């Protein structure tokens, strides 16, 4: 894989990094913040993250409060480069909302999307028509889980 200079995180990676200081998502985020790799996010991603962290099912179950969520978003906004205009270039019928992550990665020339989403990760499967189409159209763009991405960035350091 080429040097990872631009990177995109799924909202689930941000959430995982927030809840677990010793987990792979946090370590990955720390490596990105400490190194030359630029983390890109969009208002769409932050809006979905906000919608989830303010959802009663999550707040009630984990006793998540507004103060914690505010600090979390403040941290992301301090460290990520926000993109407001993301052209739509990718269709993903299996989960249309996941297409935005590919759109964002393509618009900022990112070589890596980090995600825990099974649908998004399924695009790595070159035995499916959707996977084949993705790999053919975006051969430079990888989709990895946090531990996989951490191994790549650690090796890059």
């Amino acid at each position, binding site marked *: 894989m080429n040097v990872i200079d631009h990177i995109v995180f799924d*909202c*689930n990676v941000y*959430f*995982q990094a*927030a*809840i*677990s*200081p010793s*987990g792979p998502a*946090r370590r990955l985020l*720390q490596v990105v*913040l400490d190194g030359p790799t630029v983390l890109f996010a969009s208002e769409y991603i932050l809006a*979905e993250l906000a*919608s*989830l962290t303010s*959802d009663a*099912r*999550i707040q009630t*179950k*984990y*006793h*998540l*409060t507004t*103060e*914690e969520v505010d*600090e*979390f978003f403040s*941290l992301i906004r*301090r*460290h990520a480069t926000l993109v407001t205009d993301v052209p739509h270039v990718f269709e993903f019928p299996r*989960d*249309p*909302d996941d297409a935005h992550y590919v759109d964002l990665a393509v618009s900022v020339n990112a070589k890596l999307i980090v995600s*825990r*989403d*099974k649908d998004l990760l399924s695009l790595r499967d070159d035995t499916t028509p959707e996977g084949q189409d993705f790999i053919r159209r975006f051969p430079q763009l990888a989709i990895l889980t946090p531990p996989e991405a951490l191994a790549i960035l650690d090796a890059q350091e």
Partner: protein
Amino acid sequence: MSIPRHRVKLDAGFLRVVSLKIGAHTMSIHVEIPEPLAGQVTQAAKTQGKTPEDVVLETIQTRFNAFARLDELMAPVRQRIAELGETEEDVVEFFEKVKHEKRQERRMAGK
């Protein structure tokens, strides 16, 4: 975030010169803060109801430990996760489940 009072000392002329004594066993440095930064530190301290020492130290902490404040706030959440007997993986799975339910609800509503 509470900062132990004994950990930071400020010179009398703090608008021009700040001396941070961050514990005898850790680090003691002398930092000149030029204008307009010195004025901004003073203003931030006044606005936030903190001392200039607190503002300077919190700024350093933010730079070198971006997650300190978040981790402090998230301690009850981590405790709750432990009480539920869930792992980090379980929590992310639940997050993903809610995410897909909300996406489905939004699509059904035609948004």
